[in-house]
């Protein structure tokens, strides 16, 4: 029963990692872009929410009404203004430009907010818990985060396979040059893709900041966790990303059961192990 509990708690923990990973997975799937600034954009969303809640008195959940459009616009502009210029130049330009964005965000946040740790206050839901069959007690909040992750991925699934925009995304992902010949405006589409990816990044940022303290340097580890979830799940597979997050969460729960200080390390080790035995992840889709 104890191990069942670990399995459940770990899976729920994986919800937030899957949410971290959605934006990264999307920009890789469509643009083949590995966005090094992804973690910092998650943290930036949290800071935007902090400013919104402090200045308007909204609760963090409602602040998403403001945070989401801001992050969408930011994503659109970053892709249109900077990252589109790096698409044809090989591996280094996108990597370096996103690296630069990462350092700029981190240091700008440091200059504006200082190195203090912050958090968003979510209210009573943070500590509420429910009992589920099997004598296991789970937190309402992790359950909510997990549900949001599943819902987000479901929404993306519908977007990709049931809409015109989704068809264009898939076309560009499969063969960008031919898609362009067929009349698709790749540059606009890529900008929209990063904008949409940032919607999920904003949600992930706010939900994470309600439970965890954050500071300007909190981004890189979020990038690494998101990256691990994407790789474990398999490149380009959105449901794989959810499984990847859950695997990571379960590994961390097991590690933390053995010794509380091993939590993050156990996740990294599980990632390396999967990388060695299944280099393409569990459900690979997109080819590099």
């Amino acid at each position, binding site marked *: 029963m104890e191990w069942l509990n670990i399995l459940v708690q770990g899976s729920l923990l994986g919800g937030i990692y899957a949410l971290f990973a959605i934006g990264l997975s999307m920009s890789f799937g469509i643009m083949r872009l*590995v966005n090094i600034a992804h973690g910092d954009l998650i943290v930036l969303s949290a800071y935007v929410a902090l400013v919104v809640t402090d200045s308007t008195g909204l609760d963090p959940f409602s602040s998403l009404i403001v945070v989401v459009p801001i992050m969408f616009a930011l994503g659109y502009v970053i892709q249109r203004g900077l990252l589109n210029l790096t698409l044809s130049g090989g591996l280094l*330009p996108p990597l*370096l430009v996103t690296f630069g*964005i990462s*350092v700029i965000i981190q240091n700008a946040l440091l200059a504006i907010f200082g190195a203090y740790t912050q958090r968003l206050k979510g209210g009573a839901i943070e500590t509420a818990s429910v009992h589920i069959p099997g004598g296991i007690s789970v937190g309402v909040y992790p359950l909510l985060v997990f549900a949001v992750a599943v819902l987000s991925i479901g929404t993306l699934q519908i977007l990709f396979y049931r809409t015109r925009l989704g068809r264009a995304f898939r076309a560009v992902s499969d063969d960008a040059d031919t898609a362009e010949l067929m009349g698709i405006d790749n540059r606009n589409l890529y900008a929209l893709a990063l904008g949409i990816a940032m919607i999920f990044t904003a949600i992930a940022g706010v939900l994470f900041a309600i439970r965890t303290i954050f500071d300007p340097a909190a981004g890189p580890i979020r990038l690494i966790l998101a990256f691990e979830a994407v790789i474990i799940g398999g490149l380009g597979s959105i449901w794989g990303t959810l499984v990847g997050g859950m695997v990571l969460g379960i590994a961390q729960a097991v590690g933390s059961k053995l010794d509380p*200080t091993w939590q993050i390390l156990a996740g990294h080790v599980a990632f390396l192990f999967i990388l060695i035995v299944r280099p393409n992840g569990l459900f690979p889709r997109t080819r590099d």
Partner: protein
Amino acid sequence: MEAERVERGTRASRVVAYSAVPLLAALVSLPWWSDAGTMRLVAEMAYYVALAQLWNLLAGYAGLVSVGQQAYVGLGAYALFYLTGAQNMHVYSALLIAGLFSGLIAIPVSFAVFRLRGAYFAVGTWVVSEIFALSASLINVLGGGSGLSLTPDIMREIAIDRSDRDLILYLLSLAISVGVFAVVYLLLRSRQGLALTAIRDSEAASASLGVNTFRTKFIIYLVTAACTGLVGGLIFLQKLRLSPEAGFSVNDWTVVVIFMVVIGGIGTLEGPLIGMLVYILLRELLADYGTIYLILMGALAIAIMLKAPSGIWGWVTQRYDVQLFPVGRRLALAPAEKPQ
């Protein structure tokens, strides 16, 4: 009549070769005519240029864009602190072993990260470094999360007197930096170097012409890891204190290094040197404004990557046909046949 011939040196490179002697003499004699602050700054420049040159070899030539070189800085530093502290080994032998140890650890690491390609290789190497940092913070004999210090006894092995010690450490930094530069330079002029340059220009084409790209990359990865470990040991020998965050810092040992190389010009020997000078200049000029210099470095690196991806040095060579450190070969026409 003299036909065209292939040569390596150029007039500029000969000028550099001759002016390197007085320049080195000036740097070596610096402790006798300058102050301790300048010495520290030059020592820092020396190890940064070594780190930049090593990353350049890895990413600019072998195409291995690693974001995890801080792993080897930290490993080298921890090896040095552990061997001198817990094992009572002499500082110099420990420093040497720190380098070898880093190279050795790079073997199993490469088995994992070489499975990843491109940007995934980059983040994968970063994860490995995080694993080392977390492990170091969990191992008691390595001081756990708070880290280790070098005791005064260990420092007295270098020299009893503090000013003598500063002098020796300064000269050691210069020596290791010049040594790393020499290793990279000679490697690039060797047969391996030719293979590397071919891989840099086109991996597919060089593989089809019989270059063993995997072996070449593997060797370069190990050599850079060992040298980075040595430099890491040296850096923390001067800092005296080591913690997991400081030793495995991605910002200090990889991000600024990448910016230096890209700003100066990736895939050239001159670029890292120029990029390091830009970094030190920006940092010293903007010392009063917190981390603004890092924001500027990032913005500058983005601008250069988008507008002039071959960096400052690449921009110079496109305009003026110069090469300060001759690693390439060029066709020299006999005077009569020279164009114009």
